[in-house]
């Protein structure tokens, strides 16, 4: 591949973003087709990626700043899928909001292109630019709603995101100062060559980089923005943040540890730090979620806990040896499974809140009678988040826990499994409210078309991954192996 082909998938998405704005400006009567333009761009992007896969054409591009490998391709698919689901889930909300339709979708697509760049970046500068490309549209989107809460969420997210970026940039600068290169491979070589000189500085640099991405992952202690922003931001945007930015951050950090630091640096001690962060995040997220009465806040805390679950895989990554691959494939499989599951949950919440105008869990009483489809789909996603078979979430948890066992982190698995038990309490609590509690309101309803399609896709994904996890597990394993080969 060459030329435009190297950035084809991102290019298709960005073109669609531009087209959306053009349609709005030139054909204002045809505004209702804007979501279709966005979807077409994403479809083209997926098709482009598939053509790479079918050509078996993987390489690095632009002087090694982008690695177009199986690992990147895996995430291209994940991010395009997430964006498509969010576009479908946004249609009704954006229409009702009645302003800036084209801008909304354009921002969403630009941010998605940023994610794709992030997954492929193997250079500090590219990583940073891709991160900002994906983040800035998110700050705007979080404040898209007309109410104060949304504006506040946007502002909070922006200011804290800026601090996080500063921390990240400081870490990167130190890393550059230490190694004199921004290329991940070069960094790895320089670290090996540098020996034990200035190790403290290197430690600080890596810690700050992780802290910067920890914000996007929403792990403790960088999690404080999560419940407020999820609650305040428009629900489709919260859905996008919960799976997109988390997934991208894990994609980058996993690659960073594989390619930039190498097994020597990614030592058992880092493993211990990731393990502790994972354990604390799981416990904090789950324990705080128990007392929530607002479904979006509950999902916010749950997403902190799930970030902890994903990080269990990262803790196993840091251990040298065969577990390297197992942990990384656990991380990326979890990200994909979590994308389906959490999107499904959020989409159901969008559909329900559009109808009942409330996000209070108490108002979900009797939802089973009012909309069996939505109640059933949400319950399925909650079961998957809990990690009960036969759902995607079960395999995801099992797989990362297994990688941790192999990395001799049995204590972490015990913490994780106990946390699953705690999470069952509140996830199933929501399900119980929908199925068991009685409500005065009896009128039945169905979700609108866009939401129905995206919800159908997400829940189908949850179930299919639950029943036939093999192909995706294999793909995750292959993707992780390409990283191992590079390092």
């Amino acid at each position: 591949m060459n030329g435009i082909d190297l950035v084809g998938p991102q290019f298709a998405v960005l073109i669609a973003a531009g087209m959306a704005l053009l349609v709005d400006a030139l054909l204002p009567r045809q505004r209702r087709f804007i979501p279709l333009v966005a979807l077409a761009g994403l479809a083209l992007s997926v098709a482009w990626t598939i053509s790479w896969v079918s050509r078996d054409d993987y390489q690095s591009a632009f002087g090694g700043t982008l690695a177009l490998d199986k690992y990147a391709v895996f995430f291209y698919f994940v991010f395009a899928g997430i964006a498509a689901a969010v576009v479908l889930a946004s249609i009704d909300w954006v229409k009702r909001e009645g302003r800036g339709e084209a801008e909304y979708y354009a921002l969403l697509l630009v941010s998605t292109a940023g994610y794709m760049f992030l997954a492929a970046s193997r250079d500090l500068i590219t990583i940073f630019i891709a991160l900002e490309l994906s983040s800035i549209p998110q700050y705007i989107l979080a404040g898209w709603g007309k109410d104060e809460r949304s504006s506040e969420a946007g502002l909070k997210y922006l200011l804290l995101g800026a601090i996080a970026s500063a921390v990240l940039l400081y870490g990167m600068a130190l890393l550059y100062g230490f190694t004199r290169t921004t290329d991940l491979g070069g960094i790895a070589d320089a670290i090996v060559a540098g020996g034990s000189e200035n190790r403290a500085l290197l430690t600080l640099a890596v810690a700050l980089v992780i802290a910067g991405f920890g914000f996007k992952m929403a792990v403790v202690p960088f999690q404080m923005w999560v419940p407020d922003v999820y609650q305040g931001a428009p629900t489709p945007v919260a859905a996008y943040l919960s799976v997109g930015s988390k997934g991208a951050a894990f994609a980058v950090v996993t690659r960073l540890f594989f390619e930039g630091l190498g097994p020597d640096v990614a030592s058992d001690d880092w493993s211990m730090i990731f393990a502790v962060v994972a354990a604390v995040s799981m416990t904090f997220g789950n324990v705080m979620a128990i007392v929530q009465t607002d479904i979006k806040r509950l999902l916010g805390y749950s997403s902190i806990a799930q970030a902890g679950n994903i990080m269990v895989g990262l803790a196993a990554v840091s251990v040298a040896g065969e577990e390297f691959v197992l942990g990384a494939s656990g991380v990326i499989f979890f990200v994909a499974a979590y994308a389906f599951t959490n999107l499904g949950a959020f989409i159901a919440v969008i559909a329900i809140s559009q109808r009942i105008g409330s996000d209070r869990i108490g108002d979900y009483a009797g939802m089973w009678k009012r909309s069996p489809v939505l109640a059933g789909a949400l319950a399925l996603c909650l079961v998957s988040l809990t990690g009960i078979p036969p759902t995607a979430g079960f395999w995801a948890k099992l797989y990362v826990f297994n990688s941790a066992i192999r990395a001799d982190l049995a204590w972490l698995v015990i913490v994780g499994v106990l946390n699953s038990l705690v999470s069952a309490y509140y996830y199933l609590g929501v399900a119980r409210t929908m199925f068991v509690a009685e409500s005065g309101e009896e009128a039945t309803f169905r979700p609108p078309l866009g939401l129905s399609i995206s919800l159908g896709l997400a829940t189908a994904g949850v179930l299919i991954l639950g029943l036939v996890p093999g192909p995706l597990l294999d793909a995750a394993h292959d993707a992780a192996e390409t990283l191992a080969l590079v390092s």
Partner: protein
Amino acid sequence: MPFLEAAATQSPTIDEWLLWAILVSPLTAWALIVLYFRKIPAVAGYLAIAGIGISCLISFVTLFNVIDADGAIAQHTHEWFTAGDVVVNLGVRVDGLTAVMLVVVTSVSLLVQIYSTGYMAGDSGYGRYFAHMCLFTTAMLGLVLADNLFMLFIFWELVGLSSYLLIGFWFHKPSAAAAAKKAFIVTRIGDLGLLAALLLIWSRAETFDIAGIHHWAASGEASDKIVTLFALGIFAGAAGKSAQFPLHVWLPDAMEGPTPVSALIHAATMVAAGVYLVARFFPVFEVSTDAREVVAWIGAATALIAATIALVQTDLKRVLAYSTVSQLGYMMLALGALGYVAAIFHLFTHAFFKALLFLGSGSVNHGTNTFDMRKMGGLRAKMPVTFWTFVIGSLSLAGIFPLAGFWSKDEILLDAWRYDRALWFMAATVAFMTAFYMFRAIFLTFFGEYKGGEPVDHHDPDNHFHGDPAHPHESPWPMRAPLLILAVPAVLAGLLNVDHDFGDFINHALPELPHHEGSTFEWGIALSSLGLALGGIGLAWAIYYKRWVSSASLRELFLPLAGLFEHKYFLDNVYEDIFVRGIFHRGWNRLLELTDRYVIDGVANGSGRLVRGVSSGLRPIQNGLLQTYGLGFAAGVIIFVLAVFAANPL
């Protein structure tokens, strides 16, 4: 695979598709009911009966086929998917143990479905009920047929989920919803152990195949510690499902579900799943003495504790519930004492007579609208079929010669005697108490004067009680027939092992024949257990029929003990009041709520205060909210960096 070679030479020849059909048939019924017939009660009931009936038929075919092969193993495995270096299979395995379980599950399930068409008639959730029943039966059959631990685990969880739905069937009753949740959470605590065992075997043996795990444990390639840990994980799962102390607390509450559900789940199938699981991995327990000791003593303690609680219950169904817990303890005791055959044999006979007793209690409830024995009495003449079948079930449970329970209980006592006299002493005490509390229940329910039952509350929309509790009458035929049918195995099933046919049959499911002597009949044990049982019945007769001694004065005499039993050893209080309500709800949750409201949400208050500030001129920068937020993040970074340096990587 050489280790698959059992003592028998030829494998069962049954076709693979027939084995899968056992599983698919009730699943199809479930799908059809859910999709099309939820609102059409008549069809739903018959579909369930048809689906489970077909499984039952094939199960009997399988049984005879396996009998022809002397209980040898047949396994059909397909690769499901590969996860890393481990292959996960989808397969079925039949052997003597599986065949016995298949027949028990499907035949009891079938009879319960038939009974339910009468018992549940008129319930608004009739279709939903049969759908859940089919799903549960499917899950249970999958658990029994699975040829690897992975598949077994998935069906194990599915059993838990579908029993949650069934216990909470009358979910608008708060007590039922609470009981369902309690059952789910408590059994899941045990499931954690099973999951741990699964992960352990994944990392150590790299196979999930049951025969492979047997081989792994016996080959000595893993250290004793690892094998013991694995065995204890398995037992933890089993203890949750089979209601072993201290996880037994969910089972009595689960009686809030419809009575046929209790008969199916809490007598014959789900609670037996734990015993089955331990038996399935019996070769592992044979290797680990420590794990076996735990199983034996937990089993004995469970048997004794539950029996003492059953002595003082006033609710007929709760007597049966605690009796079930106690008998499950018996089975675990037997497994721990190397009595594999005795345990499975008791599981087999118990399934029939306990299902009979539960259905009998349901029949009594159908006539009197209550389970409270203090409101019954004198039903002997009014419900003769229920009475006589109930007596047969009780005699069998009490272990009276020559009924089924006598033979199986005798073997357990014999194994306990050989293994450890202290275990035998506990088991013998339980045998005495079992006879006593069952006949206490019979005398209170069926003898004396009728005390009027529970008046029908016509304002309760869920109550669809037909007839008049003041004039109880015998139940309709769909309910009577299963009682009569179940009475047959409750009497005769014990004869199957008189010549060790049953034992030889299921022994072939093990990779090699047990190293220890199988149980044989011993007059001393048999006569002493019979004597204890008769003594228990006699005592109940003296107190509750002849009333030579008043039960109130007896209670006075044993007051501290009676109080302890009546409060179920205060375990529920410890769990509920102190742990759940006290610490969790009042203290902990309150603390979290406050933290969320004032610390996290309040830092830059989520109610929009911040932005109101923005609109009136960048005030938030001055009023400190944002600084606090930024400070929080900076603090996070500093803590993290310090932690990193503390761990000192690089």
